[in-house]
């Protein structure tokens, strides 16, 4: 295994990117890695683009992932998955929620929402689209979309299942724990390979 794993989690403000990256960090910590993560708060909330860089391994210096080095990009929104494409490593994977949230620039007619599937094909991007909203809906809680997605990427990262579960247990209120663990299991089962 190479010494550092680079992950970018992205999407739009209010999608639970913070929780997803916190769970990833905790799971990496439980696995005994050095961990750094970086994100920017402030103006970027209010529905703007949000991203979180997480790096873990034996020893981490930069909290930011370098272009061309991301092993995994996890996108909570379809179009946002494309925004970080140049950060993806040649062997990297891109997993995205099959959900479109139109930005204000599109709503006001200043831009058009792109044909994401056509771009994925054109650029030959290694994208897996996941119907995480539907899966969360079937579980009866739309708030667990992000955890479905974490489950979906969990087996692609060098972190044991138990460490993931422990990380979720630590970060989710007790009342919502069962549905979150179920969401994790579903994501992992359906898209684990």
């Amino acid at each position, binding site marked *: 295994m190479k010494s550092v794993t680079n992950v970018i989690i992205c999407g739009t403000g209010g999608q639970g990117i913070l929780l997803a990256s916190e769970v990833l960090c905790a799971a990496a910590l439980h696995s005994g890695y050095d961990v750094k993560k970086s994100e920017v*708060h402030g103006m970027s909330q209010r529905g703007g683009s949000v991203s979180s860089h997480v790096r873990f391994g034996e020893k981490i210096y930069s909290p*930011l992932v370098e272009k061309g*080095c991301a092993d995994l990009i996890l996108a909570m929104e379809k179009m946002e998955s494309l925004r970080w494409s140049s950060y993806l490593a040649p062997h990297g994977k891109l997993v995205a929620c099959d959900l479109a949230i139109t930005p*204000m620039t*599109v709503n006001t007619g200043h831009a058009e929402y792109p044909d994401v599937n056509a771009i994925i094909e054109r650029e030959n991007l290694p994208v897996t689209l996941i119907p995480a909203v539907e899966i969360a809906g079937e579980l009866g809680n739309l708030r667990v979309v992000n955890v479905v997605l974490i489950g979906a990427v969990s087996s692609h990262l060098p972190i044991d299942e138990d460490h993931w579960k422990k990380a979720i247990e630590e970060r989710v209120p007790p009342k919502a724990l069962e549905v979150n663990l179920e969401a994790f299991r579903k994501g992992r089962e359906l898209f684990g390979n």
Partner: protein
Amino acid sequence: MRKKLNTIEEGTILLSGNEAVARGAWEYGVHFASAYPGTPSTEILETIAEEYDEIDAQWAPNEKVGLEVIAGASFAGARVLSAMKHVGLNVAADPLFTLSYIGATGGIVIISADDPGMHSSQNEQDNRLIGKAAKVVILEPSDSQEAKDMVGEGLRISEDFDTPVLLRLTTRICHSKSMVKLGPRKEESVKGYVGDIKKRVPIPAHARAMHSRVEKRLKDISAWGSEYSLNRIEKGDTSLGIITSGISYQYVKEVSPEASVLKIGISNPLPWNLIEKFINMVDRVVFVEENDPYLEENIKARFLIQADGKNIVPIEGELNPEIVRKAVHPGTSREIAFSEIELPARPPALCAGCPHRGAFYCLSKLGGSSTGDIGCYTLGLMPPHNALETTVCMGASIGVLAGIEKAVGREGMGKLVAAIGESTFVHSGITGLIDMVYNGNTGTVMIMDNSLTAMTGGQENPTTGKNLRGEPAPVLDLEKLVTACGVKHIRVVDPHDLPEMEKILKEEMNRDELSVIITKRPCIMAYRPIRKGVAEVDPDKCISCKLCMKLGCPAISWDGEKPEISRHLCWPDCDLCMQVCPVDAISKDMGGLT
């Protein structure tokens, strides 16, 4: 329930730079902290209030007051901390420059959180330059562990050398998380207040002696700092020597693990002896620092050396590993397997349910616009409102409006009003309003009172009735305050009552005297919605007139023919789209209570 952090005295955890500063304040015996919120510094005081009961922490109305109250507490022998964003230090510069002469009784650490890249700021000023001008010590951490440690080092330096200490963070330090080793709190006693006019009253006769002490202090700390571990040489391959500080150090270690590095932890006064040693040790010197060439200019001027710096490292924006790699090792960049894709921007927008939306919608509808200020409502500049035309600094909306009127008269001012939030008004807008009254201006000031300091994530302020710890506090009465300033025409309106909002704006914009409109409705972050219904469009009734799209509500999107309202984003207590729809095609259950 999660244990509070003040119950955990050992172990290693992941903390942001801001959380680490709060932890440092606790471990190193800070008694008192005061700040005004400002991204990226806000979480420092929030964390202190949430986790560390032993520290008395409070929000100040602005950064100047924040610094003044901690100065007073230091005079009385308490260990103190104040935190602010970089532009906040401009507001606090007046006390800072003289506090530098006065020095510290209890240790003083002032956090300046700079924002290279302007993630959430109006400029990219490098406050190492302010710290140097104020002749105070500047410390620059490069990760969370150092951020914690440097609070302790800073307090000690402050007390040992009788100086305020500026802890200069940047966004990437404040908001990055890394491992921090925890320790217990070392309780310090508050020494008690003892008057000392020669130390604390800088009349010229005293101030001249103070200045001498300041110059001596800088020389002493420079010599001491050359031997102290906060500044260090990491000897590697001596063909390349990189001088760096702060987050840039991490990027250097990432891309140049073999190079020799001089890591500067004390950026003012610089450790001249150590720098000289490093320069003599390596064949080629390169400066890697974010924003201004602070290290480069000072060190080049002192030693008259040839070295690369801002000729290869950008002065604008944030650095990152690929920028540093390109500058220091050109031609070695990583393989980019997938090209960048051009996409529509996703700028921030006023939230669904935001009270400001009603005010900007009406202003825009009337063909008006505003001189703006610093807060969420700066977003009034965005389409479809296009209703904000200037922003300078906290409070400037009012002075700028007054000046436009002075230059071109009421007629030339057209339909401009000043738009300022209540927290910003209390911070430094009120003096602008006093100026308008005093100097005979006639414009309209719109105080957008959402009862929360919202842009920074939702903090209490003197108008909200709560303090930093969420305890009840006296409410500053804006109407009475504005009345006391001498404003005769004051209107209070719910900005979501669109007909009333529009009527009042129209009346006050047409008035030949100074007026204040207080738009009063709470921020959606300040309360839980009292209703539960969300708006729905009846496609059979909808005539596709797009009036609802003029609200710029993020919950409403256009599917090509009709509007669609997101159940996920719609704010139950808001009915603006229903108000503007001319054919009642939008409905929601406004009666149902949660």
